[in-house]
């Protein structure tokens, strides 16, 4: 473990972090260990966010740094080295809604936490959600939506998953600016997350850490 890398990245020092990663690669450091340090840094970032020391812009910056590191390191990782994934999560923004920023944060937070994440994009029609869930076989489905129209879209998506016989095998979490208990009950989801870190916590609870 490289404490300096974890520290620089969790302090969101973008230029310094990338410079260190490039140096470490030149020195022959195992790319997997660099990714592991990046994951550790994201855990620190997540904890600081929960403690309200970090905010959404900080999650964004952490995501950017993580992407920068992944772009350098992932091509160097050979097939056998890839870490085993903890479980499958499918996420998408529901029909009629094109908001994606929150969903994208959840996606990279889940990915770096070791989950196999399939992001099916925005404005996803109900039948497409059902089809993708059938194909990918996730244990958790995340429905993202920001507009008030998203509530009914989420409800229809959950109903369609139920009709397709898929509902009983998955946990469904909903997220977006207006989610609350009322909407969770209305939509018949298992949980709502008020932010990206909550989404990771829910997956940990349902799929194991």
């Amino acid at each position: 473990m490289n404490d300096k890398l974890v520290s620089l990245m969790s302090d969101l020092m973008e230029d310094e972090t990338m410079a260190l990663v490039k140096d470490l690669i030149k020195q022959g450091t195992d790319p997997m260990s660099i990714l592991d340090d990046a994951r550790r840094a994201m855990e620190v970032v997540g904890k600081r966010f929960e403690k309200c020391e970090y905010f959404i812009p900080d999650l964004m910056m952490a995501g950017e740094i993580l992407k920068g590191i992944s772009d350098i390191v992932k091509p160097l990782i050979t097939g056998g080295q890839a870490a085993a994934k903890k479980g499958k999560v499918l996420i998408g923004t529901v029909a009629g809604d094109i908001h994606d920023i929150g969903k994208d944060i959840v996606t990279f937070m889940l990915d770096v936490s070791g989950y196999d994440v399939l992001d099916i994009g925005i404005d996803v029609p109900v039948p497409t959600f059902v089809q993708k869930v059938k194909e990918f076989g996730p244990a958790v489905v995340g429905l993202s939506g920001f507009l008030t129209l998203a509530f009914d879209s989420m409800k229809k998506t959950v109903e369609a998953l139920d009709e397709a016989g898929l509902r009983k095998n998955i946990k469904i979490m909903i997220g977006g600016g207006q989610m609350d208990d009322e909407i969770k009950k209305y939509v018949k989801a298992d949980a709502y997350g008020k932010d990206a870190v909550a989404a990771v916590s829910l997956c940990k609870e349902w799929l194991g850490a």
Partner: protein
Amino acid sequence: MTTKPYTDPDIGKTPQQLFAERNTRVLNALQLKQPDRIPVQLFMSYMLPDMYGVTHQEVQENKDKELELLEKAGAYFQPDIIWGVLNNPYVGTTLALKDVTTKFPGHSGLSPHGSYQFVEDEYMKPEEYDDFIDDPADWAIRKYWPRVFKELEGLSMLPPLGMAAFGTYGISNISFLKIPPIAAAFEALARAADTQAAMDARTQETVGKMISLGFAPPPIAGALVEAPFDLIADLLRGMKNMMLDLRRRPEKILAGVEKVLKFELEYAIAFCKATGLNVTFIPLHRGSDGFMSLPQFEKFYWPTLKTLMLRLIDAGITPVCFYEGTWDQRLKYLAELPKGKTAGWFQSSDIFKVKEVLGDTMCIMGGMRNTLIQAGSPEDVRKFTIELCRKVGKGGGFIMTTTVGEMEGCKPELVKVWVDTTKEYGVYA
């Protein structure tokens, strides 16, 4: 004890009487006075066509149909203020310019039952900050407009606008206006202006008709501007890039917001002077709790927003801010505003805390969660409405409305419970 069944106090009154009462009620609330009862505002948006089996596209484009439905909904709910779909921007004008930043129902891949969306993107690249800061008008007209309005691509061929200062020695070049793409852009602008002018006239007719039926006009009608930080974030950089800019190029943000403040202020004052509407509506987005730290808020967001509001107040204009998201951690800043000179519409803030901290500073608008009048029970709606009336309505200075402006998805039967309960329990002794 037997409870008297509720009777709508507005039944049997003439439209003139209703307008006089409702207008006074709203004005009193705005001025932090205690009116006869709490005014209630319905900004129906797509709930209006959904109630009557009409497509979203139709109410967006057919203003006669929208007015017909507004009259019906107004007669049914009998609120103090009722309004239909958001019409800024107007779909006709965006189509005339081939605007890439908006999607309206029935266009841009949305079904006629779809809902309006703003397409946020990185419309200003980081390397363009300096051009924007040096000369926002030149950058906006020669770079931004051609990028977001496809009918105005020819404007990218204009010479630097500063050459206008060359006066008589510059006009020998004026034939550039005849270059076909430039000429086409100006023709498109003229068509857009005609389209918008026709809609402006139509809007005035709708306002006039609703007044003649006894409804007060919305208190947000006036100039529209944003917090300078939000203009750059929403329209130019996009939320994600602006958030990264906080760390990557903070000095550019600081310079940019000062430029935006200057032209927004001049615009809002001129608009209000020209129209006689002494309100400036300021929807706020990226400065809410969670969207930046308090030190960032104090450095990047609040100073120019506060200056904007204070200068508007000096000019005799009432800023009405829509504090979107949660502002619980920022209420102490809002308490600095001059008392009785602004109004605040609150979305997800703890409205009871808002009343406690800001009750004697500004008229508070909001209270009813959209989720409750979409997915709650009549009993829960009634109970919560009574609590809002008693606690947030106490002493006046409160306009009851939804926490999210647009009421799409809300259930008519629950809205009726909400409005009736407000009129029953929102009475000041």
